[in-house]
């Protein structure tokens, strides 16, 4: 069953605040062999940790009709207003921007706004999710 077109424009509740620690950034950098030392800005894809939680909330919502195991990550983009650093407290708020059906798949365009403890925008993470219902 395709995802309801009424999903477009819907904004989901913000994720629980995520405290960025040096330990977490180091683990992320080390897993990908990225040079990083304490005090450096986090790698550019680190915000996915917070954005992923927002995407989980979308997929876990029973009214949306997305089956987690049928979702493939199609595209990802980040726009950084400033680098993420250890000590940041980040929250992500996801909005469904676009939805189209192609060959039985739902192509869901999402945008997650990551804000800091002051409410300032730090990063916009856009993900395209490809959902093949009943595949």
């Amino acid at each position: 069953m395709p995802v309801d077109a009424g999903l477009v424009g819907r904004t989901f509740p913000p994720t629980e605040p995520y405290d960025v620690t040096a330990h977490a950034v180091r683990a992320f950098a080390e897993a990908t062999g990225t040079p990083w030392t304490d005090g450096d800005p986090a790698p550019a894809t680190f915000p996915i940790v917070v954005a992923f939680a927002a995407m989980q909330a979308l997929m876990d919502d029973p009214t949306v009709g997305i089956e987690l195991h049928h979702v493939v990550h199609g595209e990802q983009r980040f726009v950084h207003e400033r680098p993420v650093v250890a000590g940041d407290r980040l929250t992500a708020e996801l909005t469904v921007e676009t939805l189209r059906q192609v060959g039985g798949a739902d192509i869901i365009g999402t945008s997650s706004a990551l804000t800091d403890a002051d409410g300032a925008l730090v990063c916009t993470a856009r993900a395209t999710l490809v959902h093949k219902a009943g595949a």
Partner: protein
Amino acid sequence: MTTELEPRTYRVTRADLVAYAAASGDPNPIHQDEDVARAVGLPGVIAHGMYTLALAARYVDEWAGRSGRIVELGAKFTRPVVVPAGEEGAEVSVSGVLHTDEDGVETVALTVTCDGQKVLGNPRAVLRA
């Protein structure tokens, strides 16, 4: 102005994917478990698309000499990177072409391949000064 950047090759093992799954909070078993990956029609365990995009960012950071210069980064995940078991793993090659516009904005158009085939669509980074 256009400059070709030195290509680099990165090795990816399943141990790296396990570490990345923990660090990124993405526990999808298709990135760790051969049986699950095959059950959903994949040729084997595949790297997270985000892992491969992180390697693209690593390449830019290594060239720049530090993190924090990337203001925009994005790509389409067009082809999976299959990671065989063992220390050999898979090799991902990254190269880039640097364009500097008249305002001094630097953009790196990347090419990311595994086994000679592109795995990311239009990977691109824009840098701050």
